[in-house]
């Protein structure tokens, strides 16, 4: 009897772990694409408006090159997103059973207000240039941008609610809403939304900079390439200080509402005053201490409490209730480190653009190396925030463990393997295709924008419809 019980326990443990890995893989893969597109779409609106205003062909060429990348990114984002809506029920049934009254309407509004808007007007944005007026086309682009942002708004409202729940009461173990305003605009929501939107802006800016620099290095001297590079460099230079500022506010907000997460980010084991900032360390959860610390005295207290002698609550006060320390600790350092590199690069590049009017080769090469730096920073940031919420799925309300499925672990192992293979394959195909598209654009002559088949190596068929 006991043996069967233990066996069942082992099975449910491995099912739980596999579900977690699968969800982490899904969400990590999925987020790469919206992270680009939330901002890229507004950037496209900007390119289109520049063209409308100046009539300069180069702007419409920038638009058309990047709208194709937007479309590809969008397609992968959509299909990888569908997977997640299925997993709530299959792998985390306890989630909807406990907080469905809150998560349901938020997800429902996302689908109803954002998905259809994006998907319907995307077609007009992509293929409608010849079929609708220029004004309607610009408007369609704008609506797609509004759609992607609305989507981000609802999802971040829900995610933030899971971090810092508010506006509800528990009746018989089920959450019921008392104030929708408090649910949506919960304490961490404005910070998380701003942080994510800026992250998207930086990710898109570095992607545009990287691909444009690659084209320049390949000898592509077209004006459109330079416009894109200059624009993205300046955008990044403006956004990064803003992001550091918002990130700091977000950190203070987390310190107030989720002290265990901040303790893990900073590697603070015992409550202390005047805590040092650890530049590097190896957290050891068994010994509940850090090894190899490289630190700046007092700085963590100063940043988090704006007081050199401020108190930071240590992990030991949350025994059994705090997240795994090492992944949160390291991810945080990766995110901040890349942020610093972004600052350095974008300011140097802006300096060269503004005063030297040309970019040195080493700078262009750095831009290519940093093409996907936004992805790494965003992923690292999400790991900090999501792993940092553990062991809870909804802070203080629902333990991750209690939401897990009873599906046979073999089945989850199968689906997980399948997703990993597909994701790996798509990631390689995506990155490769971006550079293929860049290479192809290098060798294209400047066209009259009215000839719309440029970059489109398809047999040209004349449709019967005029």
């Amino acid at each position, binding site marked *: 009897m006991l043996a069967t019980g233990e066996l069942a326990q082992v099975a449910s443990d491995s099912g739980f772990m596999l579900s977690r890995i699968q969800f982490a893989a899904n969400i990590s893969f999925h987020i790469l694409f919206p992270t680009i597109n939330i901002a890229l779409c507004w950037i496209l609106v900007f390119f289109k408006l520049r063209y409308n205003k100046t009539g300069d062909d180069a702007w419409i060429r920038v638009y058309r090159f990047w709208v*194709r990348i937007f479309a590809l990114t969008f397609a992968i984002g959509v299909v990888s997103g569908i997977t997640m*809506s*299925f997993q709530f029920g299959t792998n985390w049934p306890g989630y909807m059973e406990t907080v469905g009254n809150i998560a349901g309407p938020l997800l*429902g509004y996302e689908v109803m207000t954002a998905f259809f808007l994006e998907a*319907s007007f995307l*077609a007009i944005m992509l*293929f409608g240039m010849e079929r609708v007026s220029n004004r309607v086309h610009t408007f369609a682009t704008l609506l797609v941008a509004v759609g992607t942002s609305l989507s981000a708004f609802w999802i971040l409202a829900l995610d933030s609610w899971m971090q810092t729940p508010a506006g509800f009461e528990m009746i018989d173990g089920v959450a019921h809403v008392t104030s929708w305003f408090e649910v949506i605009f919960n304490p961490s929501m404005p910070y998380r939304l701003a942080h994510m939107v800026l992250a998207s802006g930086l990710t898109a800016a570095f992607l545009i900079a990287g691909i444009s620099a690659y084209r320049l290095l390949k000898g592509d001297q077209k004006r459109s390439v330079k416009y894109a590079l200059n624009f993205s460099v300046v955008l990044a230079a403006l956004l990064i200080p803003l992001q550091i500022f918002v990130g700091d506010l977000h950190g203070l907000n987390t310190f107030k509402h989720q002290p265990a997460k901040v303790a893990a980010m900073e590697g603070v084991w015992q409550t202390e005053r005047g805590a040092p900032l650890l530049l590097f360390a190896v957290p050891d959860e068994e010994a509940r201490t850090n090894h190899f610390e490289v630190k700046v005295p007092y700085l963590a207290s100063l940043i988090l409490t704006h007081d050199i002698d401020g108190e930071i609550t240590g992990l030991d006060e949350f025994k059994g209730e705090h997240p795994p320390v090492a992944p949160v600790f390291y991810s945080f350092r990766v995110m901040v480190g890349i942020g610093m590199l972004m600052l350095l690069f974008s300011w140097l590049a802006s300096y060269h653009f503004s005063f030297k009017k040309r970019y040195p080769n080493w700078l262009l090469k750095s831009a290519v190396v940093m093409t996907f730096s936004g992805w790494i920073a965003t992923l690292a940031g999400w790991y900090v925030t999501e792993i940092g919420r553990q062991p809870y799925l909804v802070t203080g309300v629902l333990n991750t463990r209690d939401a897990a499925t009873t599906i046979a672990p073999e089945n989850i192992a199968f689906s997980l393997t*399948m997703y990993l293979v*597909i994701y790996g394959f798509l990631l390689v195909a995506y990155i490769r295709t971006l550079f293929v598209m860049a290479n192809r654009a290098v060798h294209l002559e400047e066209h009259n924008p009215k000839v719309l088949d440029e970059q489109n190596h398809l047999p040209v*068929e004349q449709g019967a419809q005029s």
Partner: protein
Amino acid sequence: MNTSIDWLPAVFIGLMGLSFLVYAILDGYDLGVGVLLPKDSQQHRDKMIYSIGPFWDANETWLVLAVGLMLIAFPKAHSIVLQALYLPTALMLAGLILRGVSFDFRTKAPSKDKQKWDLTFKLGSLLATLCQGYMLGRYVTAFDTSLASYMFSMLSAVCVTAGYCFVGAAWLVMKTEGSLQKRSAQWALWSNRLMVLGILAVCIANLSIDPIIAEKWLGFPQVFVLAPLILLFVFIFSTVEFYLKKVPLEDDLGCWYPFASAIIVFTVCFGGLAYSFFPYIVPNQLTIYDAASSRESLLVIFWGAVVVLPTIIGYTIFAYKVFWGKTSKLNY
């Protein structure tokens, strides 16, 4: 719980059913077009994919809405149904992922890879349709674990695929001309016949498996509704068959007819299934009233839906109007 608003579960099952039906018709045609992609003609393949290019993304969103509504309004049903269908769901998602990305990769990847992406598109579509048919079969047989039930689900997989091929081919009859249109008429002809067999099989199985459902259809006086439906089907199938053999008619007269008839057939079949199962959302296990979330939350989404759904339908019609008429090459 406030009983005065207990109409909400019925409204939501209606909305959910409508979303599934719209999904089956809309994504049905583009999945069908994907399954039909021929190996022998790049030109035909390009044209077929252009015909669905502006639409597939919005079409697929209806699945997200349908499953989303089930998750939101009937969370217990969502977890029972999808846990029972875990593996076919995962495979279907793999199919949808591969299909959705190939559409974009085929024009952007190196030209030499284009054929491979077309094949991925076809196989992805096929995998998704087979899985959907299989899932329908499992659902209809109430997730029964007998061999007969699995065999039935396999049959259902083939027949749903035939149904999607029919609506896809009918779409192509409407949207294309020349050699591709004639070819599409041929595809529509055989998939139409296969779909008829499928519908018959599902009806017989359904009536013989479950006495309650049999009573719902064959009891008195309901049986009198059945007779005109059968007549309607006989009329539709024979006229479609007759029409398809004549394609193309002068001035392309009635090129929309097979597609319109597909919509009617799908709607009637779907309505029939819904009638058979109501008020159960998990057959024989769980009714919509037991599965529904808190009425207060449903009300919040209900008011949103009242405002948003007509807007969605409005701009969907706008999008179809923009791309109205015979398919031409898609340009960025």
